[in-house]
Structure formats: C-alpha cells, structure tokens
C-alpha cells in the first residue's frame, strides 16, 4: 500500500512499476484539470496531517473490503495548471469486479471526504472555491 500527498507532478508509469504483481486485474483512475469556462489552473488546499491519515485509513479500508492485493493513492495540492493530473488511484485484485469497485469506492470517498479544497484560477487570478456537489454525496451513499 502506498499513499502520497505532494505538490509535485507524479510519474504514473514509475509509480505503477511492479504494481499488482501476482494480481489478475489492475484498475487505475486519474483525475486531470479540465480547461472549461476560462479556467487556467486550480489551487488545491489540504489539511496537512489529516490528509495523509485519512487517505491511508481509506486505502486500508478499501483493501480489506474488496480483498485488494495492492492499492495506491497519490493526490497533489498547490497550483495545478489545466491539463495536469490532480490525482491517481490504483487497485489490484484477483478479479476485475473487485478492482473496479475498489477504485470507484475510493474515488467516491476522495471526492467528498478527503480534506482537499479546490479553488478556480481564471485569467484574472483567483476565483471561486469549487462547491461540493450533491451527486458526489449521493455517490458515496451507494457503498
């Protein structure tokens, strides 16, 4: 299991080197900054200390619940330009259903329970804080 919280870009290929050895199924999810409505960048704030602890606890919970042989979570904070990767989760399991469901579960959790806050940066500078979405909350209730 590996959990990383960092401002730097991450090298997905390097992080996934050897990931899922012995497993039959590996799923990855990568979230990227989408350049919509004049967005130039996102500033992502987080809660140092709590973030790592919460990510670790939920990666462990996902591993136990879905019988994962491995799990990886990397999430960036700070200034992220349009097109840059924000985060990635990877899950490894014997069969595809568990790997898919675990990645899906981790994403639903990350969206509304991990202590990150996104602010939109436009051409004129800092704009609105991104509002939480009701359907993210609904998605979490599925599990």
């Amino acid at each position: 299991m590996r959990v990383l919280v960092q401002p730097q870009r991450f090298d997905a290929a390097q992080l996934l080197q050897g990931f899922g050895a012995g497993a039959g199924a590996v799923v990855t999810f990568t979230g990227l900054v989408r350049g919509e409505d004049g967005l130039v960048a996102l500033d992502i704030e987080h809660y140092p200390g709590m973030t790592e602890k919460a990510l670790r606890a939920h990666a462990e919970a996902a591993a136990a619940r879905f019988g994962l042989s491995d799990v990886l979570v990397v999430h960036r904070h700070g200034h992220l330009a349009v097109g840059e990767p924000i985060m990635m989760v990877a899950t490894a399991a014997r069969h595809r259903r568990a790997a898919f469901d675990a990645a899906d579960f981790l994403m639903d959790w990350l969206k509304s329970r991990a202590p990150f806050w996104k602010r939109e940066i436009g051409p004129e500078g800092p704009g609105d804080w991104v509002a939480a979405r009701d359907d993210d909350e609904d998605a979490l209730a599925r599990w």
Partner: protein
Amino acid sequence: MTLEILYFAWLRERIGAPRESVETSAATVADLVAELVARDDRHAAALSDMRAIRVAVDQELSGLDSPLAGAREVAFFPPMTGG
C-alpha cells in the same frame, strides 16, 4: 484547556487566519462554535451557517455534538472537493 483551531478554504479567508489558539472550557463542538461566534463579527459571519461547514476534531471528521474532552485540535472547513 487550550485548543488549536484551524480554518481552511473560504473559512480561512473569512476568519482572516489559518489558525488560532483559544482557551476554552467548551464541552462539545457546538459549545465551541457558540463561544467563537460570540467573540467578534468575523467569527460570527464565518460560522453563521454550520450546515455548510464540516468539522474535524483531532483530524477525525466529527459532528456538532462531538465532545471536546482531551481534544487538542479542531478544524472548520467547507465540504471537501478532492479527487
């Protein structure tokens, strides 16, 4: 007791500081919020609608009725938008 109070995102901006130490005998999060709101207009404005605010006590998500006995750090922040 002395509590470290942390604020994030727009709460941090409205309070005007990322953290502060407070001396309090508040028994619950709700008691603490009442004390902070009574302190000045900035706190009152920032913490006016607790339905839009999440709380962590010692880095665990908590509710308004969570007890503060033994706590060292309380954080207030908007709903999270990670991922």
